[in-house]
């Protein structure tokens, strides 16, 4: 039968991805001086698992890198090589390469073979960095996975099968000596110890000495015919066979071809050398199976004797140390986002329907209404709970985004020769999956920016009386219906004068009396960069405007900054919990209802006539708490016949976006609602000043105001 392996690829990609990110996290948190054994084991296992899967599914490039990675990790976790910072760097780079390779396979593209080769070479170099110490260890042969290329110098590995023809009772003495003699040639490993019933010994010898030297040595002890020396160099058919039995299952002749053998009878033992090359075998007779236990027992000595470095791998001590392992399947199920979104949509409809029923019921005669009321409020309660639970399916902890930053900070700070510590606070804060995905890029940009422009070099910091090591803090928290994410650095802070000078140079209209908040917002202008030296990290002036666009337009968020010269900068991002629902204030304008997102509202007020002024070229402004704010009549913007024509008869809703305030003139405030956002673009077309629509309780459509674009509109 042929099995289409490609059906398992997706699962492999996912699990390999998980292993890689786990590996990276573990590597980053590793204490280089005294790494936790459990962490080393977990890192090893991650590489090991990826190797197994990639080799099975034919991703040889991945298998190649992971193989070398694994061999090196194995030596480290066994204490044969000391971990070094540079080594971790190479591991991280190897992880990157693997991610690329994985992505390439996923997208049917070519990965960068050159880079992979480079990393493999580096890993191999580390692998052999202590070559001289190797013989002291029990043979640690390169794994037999074929694609890997760990050519170990000119050393050769032999499997020696020794079946003494003389009396078995003498062997005990001989064997001790034999092993010692072999040990002089290289590293020796006793594979099987003979017993009175099965006088067959097997040794694995890794040595640079020629085969003759080994034979000479045996000649001294025994008849030449008693000894079979075979080179255990990777046999070409190894991968073709790849399995084995330790017991009788087929006649020896076939065995040789098939590549398996039996440890329980002498014939089979003679065959084990071939078996080696095949890669599979049985330990004992499969029929009758009763012999299983005794056979295993007789092999016990050999097993223990050669446990060697691999012993750690099998020791129970490492259990539970695997943080890289995926959670047991029973704990979670994978559901496509589409299904979840459909559910969210349906619940959204349900919320609307519920509101309709409530509204209709309120028109019923009071006695009927009253009897309905109890069940209606119960329904409302349940609907809200249902909506919350469904929304929570899409919620993910922000640690999904934060987790990439230790690496970003590590790489970048060493590149810039800065010392930076990253602190993350509130990683458990949950927000919508859609937002999580969109947040990653802008946040990366902000962190890079803080590192590049904010945190100073150690010398400068020391001179300024600060600790040499700077700190960047990423903090997430819930505030009301918002998620607030802060990027805080204790660096030099932003230079107001420099920014203003730069803005003038760029022809951006500024005044020296601008409030700080507005000055800081200037850095989000396209093409704005104050970095004196343009680095490849940041400072090309592209990006911050994109960051702002992404956060505001892509995520319905807001971005604020605080900066103190010499003390650092705090960037505050406010995001809605989700893109699907919105807390809004409904306002009426000429009989139509509009929704103003609550996050933008500063206050609502009824102005006095004398506070309204008309400024030529700027239209009307209103005097609020010591400042003049542009007044924007929504009925003018949307061409609606107004019910209220004078601001003092209506209501002004003061909103703030992009650091600027505008007073929206509306007829009246209607109420506060949680509304389900429906896209206007997909159902109709993009309308300036409108970000979406929603269906109100009475079944009417209300438009949601796009405050940012209204603010821009008011600025002319």
């Amino acid at each position, binding site marked *: 039968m042929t099995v289409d392996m490609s059906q398992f690829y997706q699962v492999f990609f996912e699990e390999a991805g998980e292993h890689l990110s786990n590996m990276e996290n573990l590597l980053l948190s590793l204490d280089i001086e005294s790494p936790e054994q459990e962490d080393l084991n977990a890192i090893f296992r991650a590489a090991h698992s990826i190797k197994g899967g990639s080799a099975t599914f034919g991703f040889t490039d991945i298998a190649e890198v992971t193989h070398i990675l694994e061999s090196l990790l194995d030596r480290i976790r066994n204490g044969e090589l000391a971990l070094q910072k540079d080594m971790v760097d190479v591991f991280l780079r190897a992880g990157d390469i693997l991610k690329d390779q994985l992505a390439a396979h996923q997208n049917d593209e070519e990965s960068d073979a050159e880079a992979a080769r480079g990393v493999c070479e580096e890993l191999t170099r580390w692998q052999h960095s202590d070559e001289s110490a190797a013989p002291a260890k029990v043979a640690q042969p390169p794994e037999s996975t074929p694609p890997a290329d760990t050519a170990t110098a000119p050393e050769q590995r032999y499997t020696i099968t020794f079946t003494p023809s003389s009396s078995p009772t003498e062997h005990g003495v001989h064997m001790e000596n034999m092993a010692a003699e072999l040990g002089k040639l290289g590293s020796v490993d006793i594979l099987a110890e003979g017993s009175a019933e099965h006088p067959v010994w097997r040794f694995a010898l890794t040595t640079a000495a020629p085969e003759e030297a080994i034979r000479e040595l045996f000649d001294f002890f025994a008849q030449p015919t008693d000894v079979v020396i075979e080179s255990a160099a990777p046999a070409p058919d190894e991968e073709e066979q790849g399995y084995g039995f*330790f017991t009788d299952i087929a006649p020896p002749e076939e065995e040789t071809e098939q590549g398996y053998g039996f440890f329980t009878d002498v014939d089979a033992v003679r065959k084990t050398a071939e078996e080696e090359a095949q890669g599979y075998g049985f330990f004992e007779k499969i029929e009758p199976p009763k012999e299983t236990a005794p056979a295993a027992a007789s092999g016990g000595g050999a097993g223990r004797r050669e446990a060697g470095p691999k012993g750690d791998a099998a020791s129970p001590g490492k259990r539970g140390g695997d943080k890289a392992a995926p959670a047991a399947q029973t704990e979670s199920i994978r559901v496509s986002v589409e299904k979840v979104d459909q559910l969210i949509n349906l619940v959204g409809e349900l919320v609307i329907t519920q509101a309709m029923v409530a509204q209709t019921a309120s028109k019923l005669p009071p006695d009927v209404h009253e009897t309905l009321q109890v069940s209606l409020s119960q329904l409302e309660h349940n609907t809200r709970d249902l909506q919350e639970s469904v929304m929570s399916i899409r919620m993910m902890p922000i640690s999904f985004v934060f987790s990439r930053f230790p690496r970003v900070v590590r790489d970048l700070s060493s590149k810039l020769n800065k010392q930076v510590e990253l602190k993350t606070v509130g990683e458990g804060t949950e927000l919508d999956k859609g937002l999580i995905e969109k947040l990653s890029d802008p946040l990366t940009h902000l962190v890079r920016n803080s590192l590049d422009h904010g945190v100073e070099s150690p010398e400068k910091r020391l001179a300024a009386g600060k600790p040499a090591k700077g700190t960047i803090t990423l903090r997430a928290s819930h505030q009301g219906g918002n998620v607030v994410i802060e990027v805080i650095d204790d660096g030099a802070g932003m230079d107001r004068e420099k920014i203003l000078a730069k803005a003038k140079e760029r022809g951006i209209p500024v005044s020296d009396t601008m409030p700080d908040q507005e000055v800081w917002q200037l850095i989000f202008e396209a093409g704005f960069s104050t970095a004196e030296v343009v680095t490849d990290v940041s400072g090309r002036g592209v990006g911050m405007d994109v960051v702002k666009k992404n956060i505001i337009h892509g995520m319905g968020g807001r971005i604020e900054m605080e900066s103190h010269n010499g003390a650092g900068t705090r960037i505050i991002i406010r995001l809605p919990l989700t893109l699907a629902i919105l807390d809004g204030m409904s306002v009426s304008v000429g009989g139509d209802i509009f929704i103003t997102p609550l996050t933008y509202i500063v206050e609502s007020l009824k102005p006095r006539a004398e506070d309204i002024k008309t400024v030529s070229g700027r239209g009307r402004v209103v005097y609020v708490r010591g400042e003049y704010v542009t007044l924007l009549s929504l009925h003018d913007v949307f061409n609606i016949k107004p019910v209220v024509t004078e601001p003092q008869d209506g209501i002004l809703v003061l909103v703030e976006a992009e650091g600027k305030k505008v007073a929206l003139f509306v007829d009246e405030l209607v109420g506060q609602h949680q509304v389900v956002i429906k896209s206007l673009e997909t159902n109709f077309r993009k309308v300036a000043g409108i970000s979406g629509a929603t269906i109100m309780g009475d079944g009417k459509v209300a438009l949601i105001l796009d405050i940012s674009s209204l603010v821009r509109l008011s600025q002319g």
Partner: protein
Amino acid sequence: MAKSVLTVDDSASIRQMVAFTLKGAGYDVVEAVDGMDGLQKAKTKPFNLILSDQNMPKMDGLTLIKSLRALAQYKTVPILMLTTESSDGMKAQGKTAGATGWLVKPFDPQKLLEVVKKVIG
């Protein structure tokens, strides 16, 4: 009645591949995600063959094999180690633990089937 196989592997992709292949050949297949899970599942019903990975969280393959061999109902049931560890050391440990044989990763489905057929028909 179809012969039943328990496949123990922490890698979902390998597990699925093994299960798919063996189910296609008419075997009943039960999957377990690590040694601990495998041991528990093995206790719930008798299997004709157990395929186990070596490197797994919670409980590794060797420990699983030893634990199974300690159970009366698994004294003689064939157990194959599926492992990338093809070194003699690993094989000897497997043998000591009581494994019936080994199958080196990577293997293809045909090879797997060939070996399984050889063991339980």
